[in-house]
Structure formats: C-alpha cells, structure tokens
C-alpha cells in the first residue's frame, strides 16, 4: 500500500491505496464521491472526467498514487457555495443537456475545462472539445447549446452539424 495525500474540492484528504488503485476508485470507494461515473473503464467515454491541477483527465486512466499532492476537482465541488447550481450546471438544466444523466458529470467537467481556457468558444470548438465525452441519450445538440449558453453567447436554435 502507498499513502496518498491530495486536495479534493478544496479539502485535504489522504488514504492508503494499492499501486493499481485508479483515481476514480479512490474517489468513489474511499471518499464516497460517487458523482464521478465509470462508463467504459477503457478510456473512451469521458464519464469519469475530473480536473487534476486544473486539467481535464480521465480518472479511470490515472492511478490514485499519481495524484499525490495534486488539486483534484470533481462534480461534487462544482455547485456555488450556497449549494445552488453553477452557471454550467444551470445551463444544462435550462437547455435540457441531459436525459439519463450518466455522462453529465464528465460533460460538465469537460465544459468547465474548456471555458476556463477558451471562455467564448465557437460551436465547432465546443463539439471538438467534447470528442472524448460520449452521450448515449441526448444526441449532443442540447449539450452544445447548454455550453454556448453557459459561455454567455447566443444559443443556436437548432445546433448545426
């Protein structure tokens, strides 16, 4: 076992992990932060996206031990301090950017990473950025609309291809 200490959503946490413990397993099983989902476990779907030191990563494709000393942000830390939905989350609700919601934590975390680097992305840039986030339900249009809205831009009526 290896001892790891990291900051998750602003709080310092530590635990003993096996070498092969994935970051997502540590988040879900040790910290009981089950908002981060495992869709594929093969690095394809993006349901497990979290931020490590500000960068979007697939937490199913990183070991917990590699996050030693890192700042980790998950969906549980995204709401405003008073518990209300943040701008991106609210836009997902307003624009029906989710159906079953399984992909949503990863979508919101990817959207947050995109808007941090590129506050006013074009629709094309939004679509390109979401290449690694797969949604089985929505057909993506409303996710793209939600992210355009969250960036304070005009929302395409029907998103173009």
């Amino acid at each position: 076992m290896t001892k790891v200490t990291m900051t998750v959503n602003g709080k310092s946490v530590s635990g003993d992990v096996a070498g092969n413990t994935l970051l997502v397993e540590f988040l879900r099983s040790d910290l009981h932060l089950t908002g981060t989902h495992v869709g594929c476990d093969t690095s394809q779907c993006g349901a497990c996206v979290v931020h490590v030191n500000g960068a979007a990563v697939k937490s199913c494709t990183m070991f917990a031990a590699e996050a030693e000393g890192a700042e980790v942000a998950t969906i549980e830390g995204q709401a405003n301090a008073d518990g209300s939905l943040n701008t991106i989350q609210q836009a997902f609700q307003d624009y029906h950017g989710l159906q079953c919601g399984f992909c949503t934590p990863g979508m919101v975390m990817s959207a947050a990473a995109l808007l941090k680097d590129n506050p006013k992305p074009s629709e094309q840039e939004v679509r390109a950025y979401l290449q690694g986030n797969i949604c089985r339900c929505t057909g993506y249009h409303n996710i793209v609309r939600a992210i355009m809205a969250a960036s304070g831009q005009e929302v395409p009526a029907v998103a173009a291809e």
Partner: protein
Amino acid sequence: MYSFDIERPTTLADALAALADDEAQALGGGQTLIPTLKQRLASPSKLVCLSGIEELKGISRDGDTLTIGGGTTHGTIARETAEGFPGLAGLASKIGDPAVRNRGTIGGSLANNDPSACYPAAAMACGATIVTNSREIAADDYFQGMFATALEEGEIITAVKFPVPESSAYIKFEQPASRFPLVGVFVAKYADRVGVGVTGASEEGVFRWTEAEAALGGNFAESALEGLSVSGDGMIGDLHGTGAYRAHLVGVMTRRAVAAAR
C-alpha cells in the same frame, strides 16, 4: 489488473535505479499502458511513474533544432509548438481528445510504437533523433516494426530532437471509433530535402515513402505526386479497410498534406 507496486521518483537517476529491476516498467501518461494493464496484457511487478520528473518535461529551441522532453504531454506540445512548428502542433492537437492529451506523452507514444500512432510519422519525416538516458538514436534506426523499437529494457526516452522544417503538415484519415489514424502522413519540407512519413498503413510499421520524397524534393507541389502510388502488398488489411484501400489512402493523405503544409 494484476497487482503491482508504484514508485514516484522525482529525478531521472532515481527512475533509472528503480527500472534496473527486471520486472519494473515505466509509466508515462498511462494512456496506453493503463488500458493494457486492465486487459492483463502486461504484468509488471512495479510501475515507475515518470510524470513527477520535471527534467523530462518541456520544449526548447536552439537554432533550427527543437528539443522536446520525453515526458512532455501532447497538450503542451500542441500549445507550445503552434508558432514555431505548426505541423507538429497540428499532429499533437488531434491525438485522441483533450483529456488524453493532458496525460499522454511523446516519449510514451514513441516507446510504444503502435503501428497507428501519430508521432512516429513526424519523427520519420523530419529525421528526428530519439534521445535516451544512454544514447541518441536516429529515427531511421529507431523504429523496428509494429510495437518494436531500438530501446533496451529499462531505457528511457528523455527527449526527442526535431530539425524544424520550413513547412510541414500532418493529415490523418481517422478510424471513426478510436480516432487513431487509419492512415496518417507527415510531410516536412527542408531547404535541401523533403520527408514523407507514413503511419497506420504498413505491416512493418511506420515508413518513409522515399519515392514521394524524391519527387517532392524536386517540386514541392501536389502535381509532383501524379502517377506515384504505393503497392497494397504488405499493407494492413482488417475490418476497417483492405491493404489496397490503405495504399490508396497513402497517396491521398500525402497530397492533402502537401497542400496543407505551412
């Protein structure tokens, strides 16, 4: 996954010492190795993380040579070479997706030498030098067929040196599910030569299309490629496309790369 220990050295020297153990394996960004471990296709007893080693990261330019640390991520390469070497930045910015690019490294990609990996095409076209902890290896000698390289057990790619071309471009025809190239071509134009590196196509792994290099060396234009083609013999044939189809794509991707080069 089988169980293993994980070590997190912060210097190259400590990493090499940890890798002296036969059963140990280097972990770069993990974007290939972790899926491989999950499938139990590898069973190291110890993983040695390279991601905490600052001396393996970063990009520097000295004259016409760009040196990229082996532990530099695709995302960093995409951002930091956009001005000086747009062909390479374009290649890096289209690997996988943003989360893969934030972890995956150039050293890991070159060490793995997947027959469809993107960087090997650039390394071959540019005549890059693979720098390890113990020696420098020319790209032509480094790639030795699918998943095979000149690296010895425990040898670490510390850097890759690229002679910066006057203009270059990488064009790939994506396999839509994996987004790996079905065929990808990197074209690099220098004052005295042109390099054409082809990935995804051959059963022998990445290769230089030397006939196209000669034709483009005289006239760097799509028209110089008229009448040139590669044979479908020895090309990868699978459910995504036959060998003949891949051979055809080599020509198409090369023409597009020449047209796009800047």
